[in-house]
């Protein structure tokens, strides 16, 4: 088991390094932060502008060969130094640490809402297959999948903030501030969880052991909760856990629209401004989180199913 864990950890680290490497090189294709620091607004000559460009490049440490920059990046990262944000002139780690609690709060609440709403909805739909409830669950699922978060956010703001005046439009401050963003963020999760728990439940209900249980004369309640739900929930948990990284992606949109001061919002700003140190650290964080989630899932499987360990 230890060998398995070590092997998976190494693989995970490799994935994270790969992702960061990819971003490290790809982001340069899309624009240069040094150019953003050069003023074009004055009556300058081409030579003056180029001189200033080179100076800014040097200040940002971008004048060296890209491979050297890459080595330096990992050398510093190994010591926990991810450099200073180009834009804010403070350590990138400090920025992320400042923002992380906000994003965690938002993500956790969204996950809780997603489970609390999605699971019962999916199970109820499966138990009442073909009923109005089932159709409703399917409707919610489809809505959750197709509706763009950006649009939903604006509509929710118009209804609950402008017209009803119940909730604030954006920002942080009170417990009320988190409701709209968390709800918006959770909708995709509700849809996934409802859909998957419905099909998981349906699958379980069609299994032989359910028929056997029924044949034994067990009460329907026992059949559902002891036999079907317990077995069906395994696939649900898989889906829920694996859709958590998806939350990380949508959190960017939701945080920007609701001006929520989290890591996602920071990431959007950093990408727009080519703030490399912040982008890299953000990617590292998101990548690590994603890989960790899958790692934990793998380890849990391995514990449950010995065959996986020895593969």
């Amino acid at each position, binding site marked *: 088991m230890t060998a398995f864990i070590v092997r998976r950890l190494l693989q995970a680290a490799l994935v994270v390094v790969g992702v960061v490497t990819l971003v490290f090189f790809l982001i340069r294709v*899309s*624009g*240069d*932060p040094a*150019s*953003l*620091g*050069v*003023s*074009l*607004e*004055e*009556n*300058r*000559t*081409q030579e*003056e*502008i*180029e*001189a*200033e*460009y080179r*100076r*800014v490049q040097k*200040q*940002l*440490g971008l004048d060296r060969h890209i491979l050297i920059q890459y080595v330096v990046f990992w050398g510093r990262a190994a010591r926990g130094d991810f450099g*200073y944000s*180009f*834009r*804010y*002139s*403070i350590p990138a780690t400090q*920025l992320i640490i*400042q923002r992380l609690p906000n994003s965690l709060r938002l993500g956790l609440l969204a996950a809780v809402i997603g489970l609390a709403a999605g699971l019962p909805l999916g199970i109820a739909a499966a138990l009442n297959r073909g009923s109005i409830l089932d159709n409703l669950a399917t409707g919610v699922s489809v809505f959750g999948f197709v509706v763009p978060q950006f649009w939903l956010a*604006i509509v929710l*703001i*118009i209804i609950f*903030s*402008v017209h009803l*005046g119940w909730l*604030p*439009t*954006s*920002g*942080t401050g009170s417990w009320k501030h988190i409701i709209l963003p968390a709800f918006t963020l959770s909708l995709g999760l509700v849809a996934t969880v409802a859909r998957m728990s419905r099909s998981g439940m349906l699958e379980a209900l069609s299994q032989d052991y359910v028929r056997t249980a029924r044949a034994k004369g067990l009460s329907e309640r026992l059949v559902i909760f002891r036999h079907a739900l317990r077995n069906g929930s395994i696939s649900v948990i898989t889906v829920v856990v694996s859709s958590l990284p998806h939350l990380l992606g949508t959190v960017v949109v939701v945080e*920007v*629209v*609701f*001006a929520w*001061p989290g890591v996602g*919002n*920071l990431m959007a*700003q950093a990408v*727009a*401004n*080519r703030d490399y140190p912040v982008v890299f650290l953000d990617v590292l964080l998101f990548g690590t989180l994603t890989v960790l989630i899958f790692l934990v899932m793998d380890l849990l499987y391995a514990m449950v199913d010995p065959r996986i360990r020895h593969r």
Partner: protein
Amino acid sequence: MGHSLLKWRSVAIVAAIAALVFAIACGSDEPEPAPAVDTAKLIQDAVSQAQSASAAEIQKSVAAAMATQPQGASAAEIQRLVSDSVTSAIAAQPAGLTRADVESIVSQSTAGQLSAADVKAIVDQSVRALPAPEIDVNQLSSLVNSAVADAVPEGISADEISQIVQAQVSAGLTGTLTRGDIEDLVAQAVEDAVGDQLTADQVTTIVNASLVATNQAIENAAADAAQAAAAASAAQTAASAAQTSAQQAVTVAQDAQAAAAAAAYPESITIAVGALPANLVANVIPSLQSRITSRLIYGQLAALNDQTGQIEPELAESYGFVEGSTDTVELKLKKNIVFHNGEHLDAHGLLKSYELMMSETAEVAWAFRGLDDYVDPADRIGTLHNAVTVVDDYTLHYKLRHQVDRWANAFTYMPLPPAHLEEIGPAGYSDQPVGTGPYKFVEWERDNYIQLTRWDDYPGPKPVIKDIRIRHVPEAAVRVAGLRAGEFDLITATPPENVPGLISEGFQIFVGDSTQSMYIGFNIYGRFEPMADVRVRQALLYAVDMDAMYETIAGGYGTRLQCQIVAPGGFGYNEDLVGRYDYDPEKARELLAEAGYADGLTIPASVTNARYFRDRPLMDAIVSQWAQVGVRVDLAYLESSEWLQQLINSTLPDGVMNIGLNWYLADNTTSMWGNGLADPAFKEMRDAKATITDTAAREAEVKKIAAHICDNAQALHAYTIPSVLAFGPNMPGITSSISFELKIPSE
């Protein structure tokens, strides 16, 4: 003498009413060329010197007209209207109206539930039609009555009109309305209602505003009677004197109006902005939007004056060339400059603050643009002491590196307290910024909010609002929603399409202009050969209906440019270039055929997307109009930093039209980087201009360069980028300057 004052006062009042009415009645008319502004100056001087209170009233009317105007009359338009009315009023009525006349006009208007057209008719007819030096009140009265009867035979009330219009507008309010839609709706509604060109709200506002304005003016007149005699002669002298824009009157009066209403202001407000500064170190802050914040915290040695378009001393006492020298500038500091932390600024401190800021760290990569004229950008620290020397405690000498005409730009520098700066260093400064401005820094969370509080020891006028929280809300739709929900007191960069709705809900709108000009530059000397043909470039200009784009894409806000980068009123504005390439697709086709492109051609182009105000919609519209004359565009939309990088490396596709924009900071009027600079004739003129120290001669040279660019069709000039503020009715008088500074009224 007393009579004379009354005359001017009355003329001013009539002018205000007429302007108001006319502004609204003619809101959708084609813009006409602005007339000479001496009459505007006349109003301004007359009212401000003789009776400053009535200036406020005129302004109130003008502001009301601007606010109730869904199309948002531009300042230039209002200015023109005021000028027109005054000209005609004076021409027709040399002896002037009496107070009783005006009273009579106004009381008639309210009693009769007049439409704005009636009021206009009254003013126009009564003033123009009666040549007699004394107006007979009875005559006037009968004119009014017949005007009312003609215009509103059924005697429809303002409320009735209002209901009709509102029903119409809300019936059409199913999606996002364009300005054109609203115009159509309103026009239709009004036509149904009274066969007129006005909404009920406008009528009501006109009547109310004229009533209020006149009553107050009359009261003031009575109170001021004693000092009237002396003031009147001064007013008359001043009136005949000179030439400034009516914008001045607007600002002067706005301040007065704001001050009057000070008591009602909230103690603390929240402002929602689209972008917050990344950094609170003065001078390092690069983005325009962040000027809202930086100018509340920091004073500048000198600042761009909205009215003159020139940089003028602020913390500096004065500056100018040392007598007899053409390369050494002397700056005298005011002696009482104190920072929020109590530090005092003198010449040694200023030099020290330059030194500290110039240390070559990434944190200050963006600093010191203006100082490049003095200090070699490649060796700032090394050359600093050659360039800047302390003469005495409050005097410094700056030696220019080469002859440059824009030397005053360096004085837009925001001084920092040297001892404090030395203690915490530029990197830590962002968390403890200290300036000389009216507001002190309290705290901030990057890209989330900035909290400021009024500095009670500020030596200048004290702003009426105590605490300001500036929040970062990147989505414009969310800013508007937050304003509606009462969460924000003021929002910036309001989308033009939201303006009519916000007005109808009772919000105030301030539409400010800016010094940022949008234009499409042509790469004349690139590898794309057809672009080198002036006929092709001219065809590209003729093919575009920029007036229509200005109305639809910019919502008629900002100022339409006239074949030059400088907006009307700016330094070096060349009025001869007005209407040079009016929309004429036929002519465009002819020119293209002449140049040998009868079958059309395809031009490679790259422009930015969302770097500037509605840059992509503008380019889309232009592309579609070029297509109509057979010009296809191979268009690439680039992300901001990518576009800049290509621009700097000169790797943008040749033949390009890059959407760009430029400041015109006082003398910096002819920047055409990326295209015109490659033109040897332009270069020669630009270099020649750089050595001219005489302002008038330099302005003449700027005009010449503008004409050269226009004649050679080197760029397609669009409009200046507007600054649209929206805020609650409890904060009158808030404005923004042409360099995006927020102006809060003082107590």
